[in-house]
């Protein structure tokens, strides 16, 4: 059985659930951001797999580039916020930053 669409979708599903596990369990803000990056990468694998096996057109690649661009913006803003939290609370444990909890 040669490599087809399903192989890539299974790989991206596994990467997605590992990123989801990261987001669910980590209490370190940078760890959560790493999980988000894994999830975005799995979405990109899906875009490219459907672009190659589903449409035969390059649309999926263009959208993958947009996703990478937004991921770069997200990482820059997210890490700036993390550094701001560290300056305020002296920790980046998300359980410690509960000042806004009612």
């Amino acid at each position, binding site marked *: 059985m040669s490599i087809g669409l399903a192989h890539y979708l299974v*790989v991206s599903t596994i990467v997605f*659930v590992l990123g989801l596990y990261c987001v669910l369990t980590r209490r370190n803000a940078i760890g959560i951001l790493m999980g988000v990056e*894994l999830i975005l990468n799995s979405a990109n694998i899906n875009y490219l797999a459907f672009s190659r096996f589903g449409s035969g057109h390059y649309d999926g690649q263009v959208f993958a580039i947009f996703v990478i*661009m937004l991921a770069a913006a997200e990482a820059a803003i997210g*890490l700036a916020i993390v550094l701001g939290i560290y300056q305020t609370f002296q920790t980046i444990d998300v359980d410690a930053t509960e000042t806004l909890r009612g």
Partner: protein
Amino acid sequence: MSGLQLGDVLFYIIAGFTIVSAAGVAFSRNIVYSTFSLMGAFMGVAGLYVFLAADFVAVIQVLIYVGGILVLMIFAVMLTHRISDVRISNRSVARLPSLVIIAFIAGVMIKTVLGANWHRVAPGTPVPTTYAIGNGFLNEYILPFELASVVLLAALIGAVVLSRKELKQP
């Protein structure tokens, strides 16, 4: 055609490398190990992009993720942790319920993926994609392209505003 072909073997190696690295990101107890596993995951995903005949996206992945985002993350890790207590810096909570949840989600998604009747076309021979992508950016996708540049400018200014020191008013 009997037996595995070289391309298939390479695919399985790269896919396994990607999944093991992603598992390292998810399960490692040390944030520094997680960060370097993330580099392996990004490189593995770039390899998968090459298999999907997306040469330009693979190069962009290496340039932006490995060269940009990962370096930014390593900076953030080093700036926010006293290196002495880095051992306990990546604690996880609620492991067991999360494992149950993600196993359930993975089962449902993989069952759906394998059972669905996807619309397929026969993949053509891989050709260089830069010409088509550049044409698309300047014709069909010109509006999202310009919007993305505005978003990047806003992100740049936002990051500077968030991370600068407050100036004391004279």
